[in-house]
């Protein structure tokens, strides 16, 4: 399941929704990305996320499908916010559920690496002086994705 939304979400509520009433899930991994006050050497006071409505949903659905093909998952969820966000607020959530912990860990890590380089979102950061700038692509994110290339 994927959701692209302006509103804040709660990681705990989403985990509860995925696992509630189920007795076949052995392992749940969640990743929550938060707005932090410091990025690549700059103080951040506010973050705005622009996205490409339509393509975003398509890409997230494709990523989620790919993870479900590669790993044995009993549930998966991606939530990504857009719009203006304050420090400490959540930006992105990935949850994976599986019978075994290794599948859940790897699939969650894969989803985040993939999303970071393929999902059409762009961050604009504002510093303490109200100066805003577009965040640059990180070399580490491209390298991280290479790990998942099928040999």
């Amino acid at each position, binding site marked *: 399941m994927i959701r692209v939304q302006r509103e804040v979400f709660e990681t705990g509520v989403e985990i509860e929704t995925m696992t509630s009433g189920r007795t076949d899930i052995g392992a749940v991994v969640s990743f929550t990305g938060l707005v932090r006050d410091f990025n690549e050497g700059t103080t951040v006071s506010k973050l705005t996320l622009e996205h490409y409505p339509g393509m975003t949903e398509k890409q997230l659905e494709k990523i989620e499908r790919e993870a479900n093909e590669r790993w044995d998952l009993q549930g998966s969820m991606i939530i990504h916010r857009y719009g203006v966000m304050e420090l400490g607020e959540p930006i992105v959530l990935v949850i994976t559920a599986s019978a075994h912990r290794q599948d859940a860990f790897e699939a969650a890590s894969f989803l985040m690496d993939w999303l970071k380089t393929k999902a059409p979102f762009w961050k604009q950061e504002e510093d303490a002086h109200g100066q805003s700038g577009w965040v*640059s692509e990180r070399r580490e994110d491209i390298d991280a994705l290479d790990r998942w290339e099928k040999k």
Partner: protein
Amino acid sequence: MTILYFAWLRTKLGMSTEDLPCSDEVFDTDSLVAWMKTRGPAFAEVFSDLEVVRIAVNQEYITSNTPLKDGDEVAFFPPVTGG
């Protein structure tokens, strides 16, 4: 065709979307980009380094020249930085 610009391409061009017809001059993504470069200094600058411009046609990434027809949605944007 609908053309979309995102992030710093949008702010540099001062425009998020425009409608363009296909023509003898503009009929695939290569010819569209070539034509874009001729539209003035802002466009020339934005399309000067194609290493930092991603192209999507009908909401799918493309990495090689792709034919275009009226009704297509073409988007230009920088490498993504979400997550």
